[in-house]
């Protein structure tokens, strides 16, 4: 009898959690060495410690997302998703807040901390909505001027100067060749697979990504709907843009993808910076 009751209870419980996604993120601020540049980052970390990570996840259309944010910084942050969560979203130092929300259409969305020492230092991540039946990869394009990162962290400034000139260019806050150790940044698949890449630009300048070996189909582009449906080997992501591309590789091999603003491929010496790879098996 007890067994039956327990089974029924578990069944009810599983029904209530269906269509729900839950996770906990920790905001940390610290410095990290990126190819010889000691740079300050603020990070939404999936573990309770500072580590270089661009948090990303995939949910279904309409699925409820419950994200609990624990602020381990000494300053307040926000959890902001444009057009979804824009008010009542402050998380004070050492505070914990849970946000519940959902998306009604397929796409990819940036979440970020909307303070000068937040997203400008990397406090951002992405949520891919839909496409859950395909292998997917996540790229968060980010650039950083080292001295500015320290000034932002120390509250010496809150603005990005017009003379902004980054030395550090990253994908998921790593610079090549570290990018290819990141399973989100290194695209791996087989010929004829359908691979989905969710890309956001949380940096402070536009980036023009060039794919070697393949054209990709742009399925979604938050800043330029004229780009949607295009087959491209090079395309821009403006500041705060989010896009989804579909790659169906027709040949095997290892091919680079990089920013074609070639200053972005020199972080710590060439080749370094905003570069990753696509590795396709026969």
């Amino acid at each position: 009898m007890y067994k039956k009751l327990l089974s029924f209870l578990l069944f009810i419980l599983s029904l209530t959690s269906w269509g729900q996604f839950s996770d906990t993120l920790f905001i940390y601020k610290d410095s990290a060495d990126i190819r010889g540049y000691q740079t300050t980052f603020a990070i939404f970390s999936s573990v309770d410690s500072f580590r270089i990570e661009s948090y990303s996840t995939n949910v279904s259309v309409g699925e409820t997302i419950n994200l609990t944010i624990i602020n381990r910084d000494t300053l307040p942050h926000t959890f902001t998703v444009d057009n979804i969560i824009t008010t009542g979203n402050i998380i004070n130092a050492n505070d914990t807040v849970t946000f519940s929300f959902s998306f009604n259409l397929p796409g990819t969305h940036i979440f970020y901390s909307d303070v000068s020492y937040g997203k400008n230092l990397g406090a951002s991540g992405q949520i891919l909505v839909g496409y859950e039946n395909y292998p997917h990869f996540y790229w968060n394009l980010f650039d950083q001027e080292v001295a500015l990162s320290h000034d932002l962290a120390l509250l010496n400034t809150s603005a990005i100067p017009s003379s902004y000139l980054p030395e550090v260019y990253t994908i998921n806050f790593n610079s090549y060749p570290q990018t290819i150790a990141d399973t989100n940044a290194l695209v791996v698949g087989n010929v004829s697979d359908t691979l989905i890449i969710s890309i956001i630009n949380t940096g402070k300048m536009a980036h023009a990504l060039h794919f070697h070996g393949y054209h990709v189909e742009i399925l979604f582009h938050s800043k330029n709907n004229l780009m949607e449906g295009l087959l491209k080997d090079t395309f821009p992501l403006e500041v705060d843009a989010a896009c989804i591309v579909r790659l169906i590789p027709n040949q095997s091999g290892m091919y680079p993808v990089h920013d074609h603003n070639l200053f972005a491929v020199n972080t710590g010496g060439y080749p370094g910076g905003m570069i990753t790879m696509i590795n396709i098996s026969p």
Partner: protein
Amino acid sequence: MKKILLIFLMVLSLHSLAQNVKHVFLYTKMDAKHTFYDGTKAEVWVYGYYDPATHQKLSASLPGPFLEFNVGDSVIIHFWNDTGEPHTIHLHGLDVDQPNDGVPNTSYAVAAFDSTTYHFNTDHPGNFLYHCHVHTSIHLQKGMYGGIRVWGNPNQLFSGGPYFYQSSDFIASDVYTNWNTDIFQDYFLINGMQNQQTGMYQQDIIYVEEDTSYLLNLFNIGYSITDFIFPNELNAVVHSSDGRPLPSIHQTDSLRIYPGERYSVIIKPSMYYNGTIDVKYKSMFEDQYHHTNQIWVNIFPSEIKEEKSISTIIYPNPASEYLTVESLIKDQEITVFDTQGKILTQLIFGGKNTYDISNWKPGTYYFKIGNEIKPIVISR
């Protein structure tokens, strides 16, 4: 067994017959000189053609030779690196396989004074690029790039796409002549030229008849974002990008092209227009324009086409000792101005005349022929 082998060889030979094999012979040069619009000469690294029979090096330029192929070609680029540093050819946008990708990390670099061949097939009509991928941020900025056009059906942009009467190719780029990785370029180029240079050569000026479709192949291989500004009179329509048709075409008065992108635009002017397509260069780092170049456009009624297009030709440009003027018009009057607008001389030409300019000071001169003004650079 022999029969099987014979059949296999026959199938193989039929396959190779079906493809049109095109050979291209390119070499590298690291001590070429490029003359900028203000007379400044700077060392550039460039590609040029060479004669495979004699290994004689032909002209090398910035940008490199413009390569043209047809869909279905099987291309072999014979690459002779006749310099003391490694170089490659990356075939940007042609989706070649890994060994032919020209990236040192994933394929290979061609060592100093070595040679190789790159093989690929042209599957899609469109605009592509080639450039060196060894320390790209230096080698490309120093001039190791060129354009590629793959043609489909004659005078048709792509199968099922629009037709056009004529076409022009415009490659936007920029250089920083101190050749380091500073972000601030000091020259902004269209087909290697800037300011008054852009109107120097007949092939870089768009002469188009009213109600005639004219294809513009636009490339950006620089560090700047380029905005091509089309006057309304041109009725510019964007049809394809990166060698693929757009799912839906759109008319536009401006087109932003980021580094590495290419677009094909067809203009079909409906009225007389004599002016420019402005090309504005904007830094990736700053929200401001640093330069504007002009592409000259001359739309004319059909009945005066011949007179407008070939009435007078002046060459070479840049010139050094002699200047040749060919004019179909008898007693053609030409007025020569300096950069301040001061009249220097008036010349009367007819037929073909060569003029001694060895005593002219180096610089830019403007030749007014009828209503047209042609800039001519004298350099030594």
